[in-house]
C-alpha cells in the first residue's frame, strides 16, 4: 500500500483497524525519503523514529496524531539532531531543547522523521539558498522549476509526497506560496496561536509557525494539537483553543468574502484568472457573498518594500547571535573581532549578508526615518485598511501566487515588486490566519488560492477553505 498518499485521518483509520502499525509505515516512508531526488532533507531522525514506532504501544482511537510520521523545517529546534536553518554557520548546532511544537507532537506520539531543507534562515522565496543547494519542485521532472521558499523542503516532502504533514514557518509567505506551487495545503494561523519557542527568529513581528498538509481537515486537526499558550513564548496567546476539526467540517453559508481587485487585476495568467473566477462562482453557489473591493494602489505597491525593510531590519538583529562565540561553527581568529568577522563573512551566504546589510542600513540613524520607520508607518496603514475590510468581510480571497511554479531563472525574488506575487505578506503584517489550498492545474502544474481571516478566527478560515476544497475535489474527480 502506498502509505505516502494517505492523509493523517486515513493513516489513523488504518492504525485503528490494526491493518498496519506505525513501524510498518515509518520503515516504508524512510525508504522513500532515502530516495529523495529533490533535495528536501537536512538531518534525518530515522533511528529515533524506528525506536519510537517500536515502543509506541496500543493505538489511541481518540488521538488522530498517534503514530503519524512527519518532517520538520530546519529552523525548528530539535534535541536529537542538528538544526542548521540550512546555514553553514549552524551546520554543527544541536539545540539543547525541543521546540514547543515538537514537544507537543512527541507527547501525543506523532513520529518525527527528520529535518527539511529551507532557504538559509528562512530568508528567500525560491528554495535556492540552502547550504545544500536548490530544492526542486517534485512535480516538475525537468528539475528546472522551483518549489518556492523559504519552507522549500517541507513543501517538497508533502508534495512528493513522503509524509502527511510537515512543520514550517512563514514570515512573508514561506508556507502559503510553496503550497500553491505544490498543490498542497499550507496554513499559518494567527500570530501567537502556535508557540514560536524553538522557532529560530527571522523577523519576530512577522514570524509565524505553521505547516503543510494534504487536506484542510488535517490542518484543523494539527491546529488543535499545536495551538495554545506556552509559558516559554510570552507572545503566544491565551485565546481559547477551539475544536477546530469539529468546526471545520460544517456547512455554514453566507460568509462575506472580499477579493482585492488591485491584486486580482495584477495577475496576467488568463488561465489562472479563469480558474479563480470559476471558484468564485462555486463559493456563491455554496451561499457565500463574494465582492471585489478596492484597495489604494499606494498601499498595494507598499506591501513588498514594507515587508522587505521590516524583515531585513529585524533579521539584521536576530542574526547577530551567530558570531561563532558560544555556539555554532567558529572560524578561529586572534581576537573577538577577527573571529566574528571571519565566521560571519565566510559562513553566511551572499543572500543573508545582503539582507543583514540592508537591515542595518534601514535601522541606522541617518536612514531610519526614511526606511525602517516609514515601513512601520506603511505596515500600520495597510493593517488599518485590512482591519476595516474585516469589519464587513469575513475573508480576503485571492490567488496565492500569480502563476504555477516558475523556473529558477525566471525571476529574482528580492527585486520582484509584483503586487500579485507578494500580497500574502498582508497576513504577516496583521498576524491574520491564512491558508492556501489547491485551486486546480494549469498545464499539469498546480495553482493555489488563499483565504485570510480575522485574528483567532481560524475556525471559520478553515471552514471556508474546507468547503471550497470539498467542491473542487468533487469537480476534479
Amino acid at each position: 500500500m502506498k502509505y505516502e498518499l494517505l492523509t493523517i485521518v486515513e493513516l489513523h483509520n488504518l492504525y485503528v483497524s490494526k491493518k498496519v502499525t506505525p513501524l510498518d509505515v515509518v520503515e516504508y516512508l524512510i525508504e522513500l525519503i532515502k530516495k529523495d531526488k529533490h533535495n528536501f532533507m537536512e538531518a534525518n531522525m530515522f533511528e529515533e523514529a524506528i525506536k519510537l514506532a517500536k515502543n509506541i504501544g496500543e493505538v489511541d482511537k481518540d488521538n488522530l496524531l498517534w503514530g503519524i510520521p512527519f518532517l520538520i523545517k530546519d529552523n525548528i529546534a530539535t534535541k536529537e539532531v542538528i538544526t542548521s536553518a540550512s546555514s553553514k554557520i549552524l551546520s554543527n548546532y544541536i539545540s539543547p531543547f525541543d521546540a514547543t511544537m515538537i514537544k507537543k507532537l512527541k507527547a501525543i506520539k506523532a513520529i518525527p522523521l527528520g529535518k527539511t531543507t529551507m532557504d538559509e534562515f528562512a530568508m528567500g522565496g525560491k528554495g535556492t539558498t540552502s547550504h545544500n543547494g536548490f530544492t526542486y519542485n517534485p512535480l516538475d521532472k525537468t528539475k528546472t522549476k522551483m518549489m518556492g521558499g523559504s519552507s522549500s523542503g517541507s513543501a517538497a516532502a508533502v508534495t512528493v509526497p513522503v509524509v502527511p504533514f510537515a512543520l514550517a514557518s512563514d514570515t512573508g509567505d514561506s508556507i502559503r506560496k510553496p503550497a500553491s506551487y505544490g498543490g498542497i495545503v499550507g496554513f499559518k494561523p494567527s500570530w501567537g496561536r502556535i508557540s514560536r519557542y524553538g522557532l529560530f527568529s527571522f523577523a519576530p513581528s512577522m514570524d509565524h509557525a505553521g505547516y503543510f498538509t494534504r487536506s484542510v481537515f488535517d490542518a484543523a486537526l494539527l491546529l488543535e494539537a499545536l495551538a495554545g499558550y506556552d509559558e516559554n513564548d510570552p507572545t503566544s496567546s491565551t485565546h481559547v483553543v477551539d475544536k477546530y476539526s469539529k468546526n471545520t467540517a460544517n456547512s455554514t453559508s453566507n460568509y462575506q468574502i472580499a477579493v482585492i481587485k488591485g491584486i486580482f487585476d495584477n495577475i496576467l495568467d488568463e488561465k489562472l484568472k479563469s480558474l479563480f473566477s470559476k471558484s468564485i462562482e462555486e463559493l456563491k453557489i455554496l451561499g457565500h457573498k463574494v465582492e471585489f473591493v478596492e484597495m489604494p494602489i499606494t498601499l498595494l505597491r507598499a506591501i513588498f518594500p514594507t515587508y522587505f525593510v521590516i524583515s531585513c531590519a529585524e533579521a539584521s538583529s536576530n542574526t547577530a547571535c551567530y558570531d561563532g562565540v558560544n555556539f555554532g561553527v567558529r572560524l578561529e581568529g586572534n581576537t573577538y573581532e577577527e573571529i566574528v568577522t571571519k565566521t560571519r563573512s565566510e559562513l553566511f551566504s551572499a543572500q543573508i549578508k545582503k539582507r543583514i546589510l540592508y537591515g542595518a542600513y534601514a535601522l541606522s540613524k541617518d536612514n531610519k526615518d526614511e526606511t525602517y520607520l516609514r515601513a512601520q508607518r506603511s505596515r500600520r496603514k495597510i493593517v488599518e485598511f485590512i482591519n476595516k475590510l474585516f469589519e464587513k468581510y469575513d475573508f480576503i480571497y485571492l490567488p496565492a501566487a500569480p502563476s504555477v511554479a516558475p523556473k529558477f531563472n525566471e525571476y529574482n525574488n528580492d527585486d520582484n515588486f509584483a503586487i500579485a506575487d507578494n500580497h500574502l505578506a498582508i497576513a504577516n503584517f496583521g498576524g491574520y490566519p491564512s491558508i492556501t489550498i489547491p485551486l486546480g492545474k494549469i498545464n499539469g502544474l498546480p495553482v493555489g488560492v488563499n483565504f485570510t481571516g480575522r485574528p483567532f478566527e481560524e475556525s471559520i478560515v478553515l471552514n471556508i477553505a474546507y468547503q471550497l476544497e470539498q467542491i473542487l475535489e468533487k469537480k476534479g474527480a
Partner: protein
Amino acid sequence: MNFEAIIGLEIHVELKTKTKMFSRTPIDFKAEPNTLVTPIDLALPGTLPLVNKEAVIFAIRVSNALHMKIDKLIRFDRKNYFYSDLPKGYQITQDRFPIGSEGYIDLEVEGTIKRVRIQRLHLEEDTAKQIHLGDETLIDYNRAGIPLIEIVTHPDLRSGKEAAVYIEKIRQIVTFSDVSDGKMEEGSLRCDVNISLRPYGASSFGEKVEIKNLNSISNVERAINLEIKRQEKILLKGEKVIAETRRYDDSIKDTVSMRSKDETVDYKYFPETNILPIKLSGAFVNEVISNCPELADKKRKRYIKEYSLSDYDADILLLDKYNAAYFDEAAKFTSFYKTLSNWVTVEIATYLNSEQICISDFPIEPKRIALLVNLIESGDVSNKQARDIFTIMLKSTDEPLNIAKTHNLMQISDENVILETIRIVLNENKGAIEDYRAGKDRAFGFLIGKIMGKSRGKFNPTLTSKLLKREIDKNE
C-alpha cells in the same frame, strides 16, 4: 576666567531579583562561573525573552523614590552592537519609553539643599562578565541577563562633591528599598560621568567628556576634580576640549583617553517585538509603592520626630540599611530610643568593628538588646553591669534578665534594703552628716561611697542617692 562644571551622571544598578531579567535562571553572585546559564542567557536560537515581574516592581520602587512619572505601559527596545560579552548581539533595554521619567532628588551638600533633576530610569539586562588572562579572555555568562536599572540625571551637578553626595543618595535609595546591594566596589552600582566646562554665565555647553570605569564614590569625586582641572587648563590655553570617552585608571589615579566621540557606535535601536507591551494597572503600581520598604528619608524623619533622636544619631543609624533595620526591629521592644540608639551605634558598632563582621551576622538578636536597654532604664542594671551582660549575651541565647540574675549582675533597688544600710552608715558617720549640713558637698559623696561599698556596688546609685538625701533631710 572662571569656569563652571556641568556634570551629569548615568548610574547602572544591578537588581537583586531572584532570577534574570529575561529568563528564569536563578541569580547567585557567589556561584561558580557559568553554572547559572540557560539557553535564553546564551541567546540560543529559538529562545524568547520572558520579562521578570520582580525587576519591574523594583524599577517602580526606585522611580517612585526619585519622584518620577511611572509609565504604566512597559515596552522594550533592542540596542544593537557586537561585543564578546553580549551573546544576542543586542541588549534588550528601554529606549523610547523608560519606565520612569522626569523626577528629582534633593541633596544636602555642605548645609544647603540642592535639587537634581532625574531625566530617566529604565530597565535593561547586564552583559556577561569578561575575565582577561594574558591574551585570553574568559567569559562568565552567570552575569549575562541580570536585571539593571539605569538612572540618568539632567546635567545639574556642579562638582565632584555634589556627584559623590548624589551617588551616596542613590545607593541609600536602592539599598533601603531592597532592590540592590548597591556596592560600587563589587560592580552592583556603576557610574559613568559626563562633564563639560563653560564660563560662568554662559548658557551654551562646552564639549562633553565621558568618564567610565569608576569603582568607588571617592574615585568619582577624584576623577571629576581631575577632569575639571584638565579641561580648565586646556581652555585657559585657548585650546578646545575634545569630545571623548576617558577611562579612570585606579593604578595611576588618573583618567586616560579611551576613544573619541566620532567613533561613537550607532546602536540602531528598534522595538523588541518579542515582548508585547505590558499594561500595569494603577492598583498594581500603587500596591508596589505602598509595599516598598521604608526609605531612609522617611526613617530619618521618624527617628527625629517620633523617637526624638538627634540628627547626628539618625544619620549614624542610617549609614547602613542593615543597621537601621536592626534598630527598627529592636525599637519594637523598647521605648528608650536614645539609649537603644547609643547601644546600636556605640557598643554594637565597636564590637562589629573589632570582629570585622556585618550587623546581619551579629549574634545578639535586636529584641534581646532592647530588653537589655529596658533593664538599664528601669535601674535593674547599671551601665557597667549592662556591658558585662552584653559580653555574656554574645555567647549565650539567654534573656538579659536571666543572665543578670544568674551572674549576679543586678542592681538592688529595694528601698527597705537600701534604707537599712543607709541608716547603719549614718549611725557610724555622724560627723559626716554634720559636715554635709554645714555645706560640705564632699561629705555626701563620702557617705554614698560608704553605702555603695557595703552593697559591693550593687545598690541602684540614683535611688541610693535619693534615699540618702531624704534620710538626712528627715533627721534634720
